[in-house]
């Protein structure tokens, strides 16, 4: 399919593929098995300037857009979703600085993020607040010169490994979502520690951990934007990042499709490679159609984001929901085509199936996002657009 990528996008895609095949492929099974954080690969990505893509040129980045980021995430995820999400989480964790940060905050943090010297993380989820982000309990109490954070964040991707955290906490408990604010917290700040590291079904190379704040003092200069803007900033952040989850889903589905085709070509039953069986052909064709449709949607939405469109909630949710459902279906079918072998950890498709599942859950559960899309439909009809 011709997606009319520009020079830089082709370059970025090829480079990400090269790194994925040369550096990630040889170690992906091991990273998954040992649940090991992929530091060596993060260094490769940094040395190749891939962290610069999502940082503006003024701050030593390359000023790429949402589509550039999606291309990288897709290529990495085609080989290992755990590595891909580790990279993507750093784009997510730095979004608030890029979009809403002060000049000082940008100057302080972005060059190091662009160089890949410091990873970032975005901390919203809590035990009581997942899909319902309004049920936050972590508080930020105003004191002289800053704020004091108290509370626990759960399931934080890149937690423990990242150096910079965007943390959402309530500055005014009485105002509900309108009382939330975003703070930049450096690793090593007194009162900020890490809790349990999660053992996961998939994306096991990525780190998922609890963040614990106990009377953690954050200087005033580290609030992002104004008090009370945290919830709005979060919605913007997720609108921007969801196409990336879509790309992650497309990548893992593409990897599973390729593996299934290769296997079907060489697996002989009844005297012929199983790809000669109509039953297998139909499955493979359906997989290919689904993957391509998901990719087309993700790229189209990423381009919409890059066009500067103000309102992208609906489109970005669509890209995430559709692609993640495709990823789950396609990876499951890949395991089916592999048969018994597919169920074994000696082959890559069971990992892909485990890795795919999370894309239906995080950055907004698909059910919630469908409701969001429906709400937008209703509003739009109401406005007679």
């Amino acid at each position: 399919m011709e997606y009319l990528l520009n020079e830089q996008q082709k370059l970025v895609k090829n480079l990400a593929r090269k790194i994925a095949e040369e550096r990630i492929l040889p170690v992906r099974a091991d990273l998954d098995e040992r649940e090991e954080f992929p530091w060596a690969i993060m260094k490769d990505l940094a040395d190749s300037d891939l962290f610069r893509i999502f940082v503006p040129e003024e701050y030593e980045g390359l000023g790429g857009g949402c589509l550039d980021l999606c291309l990288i995430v897709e290529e990495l995820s085609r080989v290992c979703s755990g590595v891909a999400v580790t990279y993507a989480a750093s784009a997510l964790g730095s979004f608030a600085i890029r979009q809403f940060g002060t000049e000082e905050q940008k100057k302080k943090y972005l060059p190091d993020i662009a160089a890949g010297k410091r990873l970032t993380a975005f901390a919203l989820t809590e035990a009581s607040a997942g899909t319902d982000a309004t049920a936050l309990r972590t508080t930020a109490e105003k004191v002289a010169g800053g704020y004091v954070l108290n509370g626990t964040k759960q399931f934080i991707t890149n937690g423990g490994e990242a150096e910079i955290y965007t943390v959402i906490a309530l500055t005014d408990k009485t105002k509900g979502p309108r009382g939330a604010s975003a703070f930049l917290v450096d690793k090593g700040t007194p009162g900020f520690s890490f809790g349990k590291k999660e053992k996961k079904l998939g994306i096991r190379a990525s780190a998922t951990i609890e963040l614990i704040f106990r009377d953690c003092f954050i200087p005033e200069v580290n609030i992002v934007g104004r008090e009370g803007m945290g919830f709005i900033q979060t919605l913007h952040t997720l609108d921007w990042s969801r196409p990336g989850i879509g790309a992650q889903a497309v990548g893992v589905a593409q990897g599973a499709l390729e593996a299934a085709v290769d296997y079907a070509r060489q697996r002989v039953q009844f005297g012929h490679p199983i790809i000669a069986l109509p039953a297998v052909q139909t499955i493979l064709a359906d997989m290919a159609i689904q993957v391509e449709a998901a990719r087309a949607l993700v790229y189209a939405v990423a381009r919409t984001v890059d066009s500067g469109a103000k309102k992208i909630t609906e489109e970005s949710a669509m890209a995430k929901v559709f692609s993640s459902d495709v990823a789950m279906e396609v990876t499951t079918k890949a395991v089916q085509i592999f048969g018994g072998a597919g169920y074994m950890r000696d082959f890559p498709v069971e990992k892909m199936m485990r890795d795919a599942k999370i894309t239906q859950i995080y950055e907004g559960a698909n059910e919630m996002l469908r409701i969001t899309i429906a709400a937008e439909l209703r509003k739009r009809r109401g406005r007679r657009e």
Partner: protein
Amino acid sequence: MNIVVCLKQVPGTTQVKINPQTNTLIRQDIKNIVNPFDTYALEEGVRLKERYGGKVTAISMGPPQAEGMLREAIAAGADQTILLSDRAFAGADTLATAYTLAQAIKKIEGYDLVICGRQTIDGDTGQVGPELAEELGLPFIAYVNKIEETTTGQMRIQRMIEEGHELIETPLPAVISVVKEINVPRLPSLRGIIKAKDAIIPVWTAHNLGVDPSMVGLDGSATRVVKIFFPERVRHGEKLQGDLEDQVASLIEKLRKSRVI
């Protein structure tokens, strides 16, 4: 440190076909790559530059399309490149190649070190490095696997020999050839690729070099390729007959006859 790295573009496959009429490589449909051993040479040059300052000049003799490879060298950290390209250079053997490279390197001011890969994967001779050192009148150390230290005019390096390592101190300038154990070449960077795209790759011809035409290309070659062929594979297998004991007895007799046991 002012470092020169020699690179060669080679066919990127080990299943090269040979035209039986002309005894030359069939180059259609073969993707050219940087000779893999040369990538270690380039990486080591770039690392030395990062450690001690200076610049890296990547040099190659080859057809005009070798320009693409030199752009890759810039993406991988080379500061400048020179492509030696002229019809007069065609058909060169290792002697003529070393002569031509030496004439070009002599024009690079104040170089401290010339790094080559241990050999190419197409010609496989490993001769250009030592011949180049001879042409330049410089010391040559082959199979370097570690550069320990560089001080002004001096370098301590380690090289691989059959049963271990040798530590060598050499005055500079010198020519070395490196083995793959010396480093892991970096991946290209986006900023490097962007820089490489706009880089100017100067092309030096025989005229620019002012070389003696009888010393370059086919005319300057001391050797001629008479024939290239695949050695015929002859298998002298034999299946032993009889029951197990007969087979063992006959095997032992055969081994005794051939003095294996």
